[in-house]
């Protein structure tokens, strides 16, 4: 017998609860030795990564216009490469990434953003990895 869930009836809290249940099942199935427990829910492999007071590569490369630094976004190539490699492992999870590394995994954007900030990363890339590989988009 299958459980059929009408997604349109789901609330954000329902979604988080399902995520936590799925995270629990995932943890029981496989123990990620490289992941370090941070707080009660978020796992992070980046605890020992030196970052406090570091100057990011992007900061050094920040474009200048008329001698002034111009606001811009990083192309996030390393993070996109990480996603191409690891999306299947983290299906359904929210992740915080920076410098091509996983900083935190959790059940909401807020949770992983806060965890990344605790690690000293203030502007990580936050991604909600789809539960299933994305199908080609049909447009209109």
């Amino acid at each position: 017998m299958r459980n059929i869930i009408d997604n349109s009836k789901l609330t954000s809290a329902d979604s988080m609860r399902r995520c936590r249940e799925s995270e629990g099942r995932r943890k029981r199935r496989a123990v990620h030795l490289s992941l370090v427990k941070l707080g009660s829910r978020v796992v992070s492999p980046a605890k020992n990564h030196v970052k406090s007071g570091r100057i990011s590569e992007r900061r050094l490369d920040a474009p200048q216009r008329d001698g002034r630094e111009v606001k811009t976004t990083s192309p996030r190539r390393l993070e996109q490469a990480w996603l191409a490699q690891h999306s299947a492992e983290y299906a359904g999870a929210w992740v915080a990434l920076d410098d091509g590394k996983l900083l935190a995994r959790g059940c909401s954007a807020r949770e992983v953003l806060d965890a990344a900030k605790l690690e000293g990363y203030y502007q990580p890339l936050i991604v909600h990895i789809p539960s299933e590989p994305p199908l080609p988009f049909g447009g209109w």
Partner: protein
Amino acid sequence: MEHFLRFSERYAYDSRSEGITIPAVLSTGGNKVQLLAKIDTGSSNCLFDRGYGEALGLRIEEGVHQTYSTVNGRFEAYGHELSILVSGTETTTTAYFYADPTIGRNVLGRRGWLDRIRFGLVEYEQFVYLADYNQ
């Protein structure tokens, strides 16, 4: 007759991603969140996973309610005023967050983003060209 456009930015997008995916930073009230969004000329507005709105400290359902139609149905979203920084171009707009937490597609659409910039696309080379419309 030839026509010329001038761009200040060029972004090489990742061919492994579905859609034309580009990093963007949403900011409001001193909070920021970085995400990956797809450029979508078919979308009326900019739409984002509600999780990002919650990370920015927004109460999603207190925004401007809007119903959208799709090819096979409809969905609800709520609009909030915020800034969107893509490459070197920042726009301030009403962006929408999906009511349904299971919808995760982040979209940079026409109103609020494409209508504030000049945009060029060379899919063969996987380059997006961008410039602030006013520059």
